[in-house]
């Protein structure tokens, strides 16, 4: 009992520290590393409550894949510079956010602590956890029976997500239209076409860099749009 309590308190401290780090640290890389700490802590709590399989994928998928993906994006975009946290540009956002947070936490704790120390509710009769059966077997049994339709749908969801990510991050170059080719030898013309496309691409990039510099100009176009 003592050991359990000790483990819980230690991991809880790590979790809270990690969460605070995600919110408070200014460098995105540090934020990501703090997130890993929280995720590991949650994985330990999963093990403590017998959810061994979930603890494993918590570490492998969350800490191992998702956070690494975050870090890749941070490096790719080069946004690993510190963000100023001194003041919020939206008026009253920060006090309102803290007030909302306090309200949520306060109300949750009121609800949790006022009803005593035990969870009420009906214990399961259908999907009871059988102590003799390994956790992973029990989970697989419900996933492939009661939840098999949802399980199949998630495969569609993941496929769609992958396709969406590819489409979103694809660099769109100018398409080459064969019908536009004038008469002549194909190889030369193709080369000419590629050259023209390259020039066009450069122009586009220049325009893109120009886009971001004058802040006021963008404002005026947005005004005009309205």
């Amino acid at each position, binding site marked *: 009992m003592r050991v359990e309590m000790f483990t819980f308190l230690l991991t809880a401290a790590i979790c809270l520290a990690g969460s605070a780090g995600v919110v408070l640290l200014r460098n995105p890389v540090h934020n990501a590393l703090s997130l890993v700490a929280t995720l590991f802590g949650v994985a330990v709590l999963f093990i403590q409550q017998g959810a061994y399989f979930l603890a494993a994928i918590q570490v492998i998928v969350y800490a191992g894949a998702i956070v690494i993906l975050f870090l890749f994006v941070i490096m790719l975009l080069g946004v690993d510079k510190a963000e100023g946290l001194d003041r919020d540009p*939206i008026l009253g*956002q920060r006090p*309102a*956010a803290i007030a*909302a947070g306090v*309200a949520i936490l306060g*109300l949750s704790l009121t*609800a949790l602590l*006022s009803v005593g120390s035990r969870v009420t509710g009906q214990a399961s009769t259908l999907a009871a956890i059988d102590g003799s059966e390994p956790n992973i077997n029990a989970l697989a049994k419900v996933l492939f029976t009661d939840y098999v339709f949802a399980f199949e749908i998630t495969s569609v969801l993941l496929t769609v997500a992958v396709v969406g990510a590819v489409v979103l991050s694809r660099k769109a170059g100018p398409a080459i239209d064969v019908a536009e080719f004038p008469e002549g030898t194909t190889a030369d013309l193709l080369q000419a076409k590629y050259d023209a496309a390259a020039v066009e691409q450069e122009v586009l990039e220049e325009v893109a860099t120009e886009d971001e510099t004058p802040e006021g100009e963008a404002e005026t176009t947005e005004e005009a749009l309205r």
Partner: protein
Amino acid sequence: MNLIWLIPCLPLFGFLVLLVAGRKLGDPGAGWWGTGIVAASFLVVVKVFFDLLALPEEERSLTQTLFTWIPSGSFKVSIGFLADPLSILMCLFITGIGALIHLYSIGYMKGDEKFSKFFLYLNLFLASMLLLVLGDNLLLTFLGWEGVGTCSYLLISFWHTDPANASAGKKAFVTNRIGDFGFMLGTFLVWVTVGSINYADIGPAAPMIAAGTATAIALLFFLGAVGKSAQLPLSVWLPDAMAGPTPVSALIHAATMVTAGVYLITRLNPIMAQAGWANDVIAWTGAITALVAASIAIAQTDIKKVLAYSTVSQLGYMFLAVGTQNYVAGVFHMVTHAFFKALLFLGAGSVIMAMSHEQDMRKFGNLRKYLPVTFATFMIGWLAISGIPPLAGFWSKDEVLAGAFNAGPAGPVLWFIGLLVALMTAFYMTRVVIMTFFGSEKWRLTDAPHEAVESADLESEAVESMDLVTASVAAADHGGGHDDHHGLSPDHTPQESHWTMTAPLVILAGLSIFAGGINLPFGSDFKHLERWLEPTLAYEHELPPVPVLVLLAFAAIAVASLGIFLAYLVYSKHKIAAKKIERPVLAHAWYIDETYAKVAGGPGEAGFQGLADFDGTVVDGAVNGVGAGVLGIGNKLRPVQSGLVRSYALGISIGGALLLAFIVTRMNL
């Protein structure tokens, strides 16, 4: 055995082939294809007919269900065909006359630009008509009902480059919509009452229907029948429908489609038996329509218009028969009428062809010299429709009248109206015959048509000369589109038509003579039709006793002879001036069309304008007001949508906090 499905599918197949390859088949290939496929359908009908004949009387009802068309809860409609004595009888004369008229059209439509399209429409029409007759439920009948309506529209406005033809088609279509509305409501009411729209279920369930409901159903379906069969007050479309080619007038607007209303009422006779006074409405509508239309026919100068009003009048006879629950007589008259009216129309078409598409009878005369076959067959049609024994028309008309005489206290009045109609019928048909086939050759007179014709015939009043002006204007308009149609020169020599046109005339003439034999009133051994139809009829009709019957028959013969004699006096001997009989009010069809135009153009238009204004201000105002209100509120709320994702997230957080607060306050603390 199960060849029933072939009956409507053969013409449908013919239609599809013509749709794809009609132009390739060309003139006359497309015509021969269309004729052949309908003749094949006729042979199938004959086969099914003999199959039915081989069965015992009570079992003469074959149903063939192909597949479920609309499965929707307890409402289920199948594509199924019902071959019973009534529908097979209808199919026999529809496909038989249909094949003959297809053959006739090969000659009549020769050289027309849209030759193959004509046969395409005709085949589609026959497929729809057979579906109407053979469908084993009301919805399938309605499908055919709409199909024939569409084909009728397409064929009336076949020469649509002339605006008059196009608007005649539209008139038919719009008028029929009113009737279709009644048909649909009737179907709904049957579904609600009986719980099925299959004829097989309606028959046994009909005696349980309350009298009020049955009356409502009967009146709704009768509204549909009034539209389709051109009874008053929806009769206005049929005379205008003569704008279509003459074979169309013969097939659709005389022999088959317009009798669909009679078929429908006969098919629903179990309900009609419960319908009480609805039957009186039907009988009186039929009688009055017959009288009014016959009186109009007396004063028409266009040969096809005379026949059109005559058709309306004869359809009135049929409704008189079914309204007095004398269904056998109604169907009997429908069959004989199909024969002799198709014959008369086709004969008129032959005359019109010979006279370079002239339809004004005042320019005809002495055509018996030039058109011997047409003349001979037309004479048979004339005697048949006038009611001279032993031709077909006499027997069927006599049975209608005898049935009417015996129909309750008002029977003798109905019978007298019918007798009056018989007199008029004999009169106007004799007038047509004399003006067309006898007398002098009036188209040879070079003067203006008004003075050209014999004084006794055509000394018309100012109104009629006005008519001539409009007619000639219309002719000029018409000539713009079809130069070849109006070239009647004084030295024109009419020529007898091609054999494809005369052969159907001869066959139909034969049928017009002998068709009365299917139901002779000399005892039950001679009443083949009555015995044949008996299984489908829920109602036994009683005829008057034999001495009365004989008396009635002699009265009918006397009246018909009187009509013919009067017309002979007026138009051949000129003892009586024609203008005394051809009143302008008759020539103008009792001003029914004008009244419609006045009502729709005067108070009607004002009413519709009022509705439009109401719609524009109140309804649109309410709708636009809601829109404007929403727009205003939206403009006020616009700043809330800041586009900043964190503001939105804050909104969600506050909402979540409020929800939590709600839950906490509801807890049993």
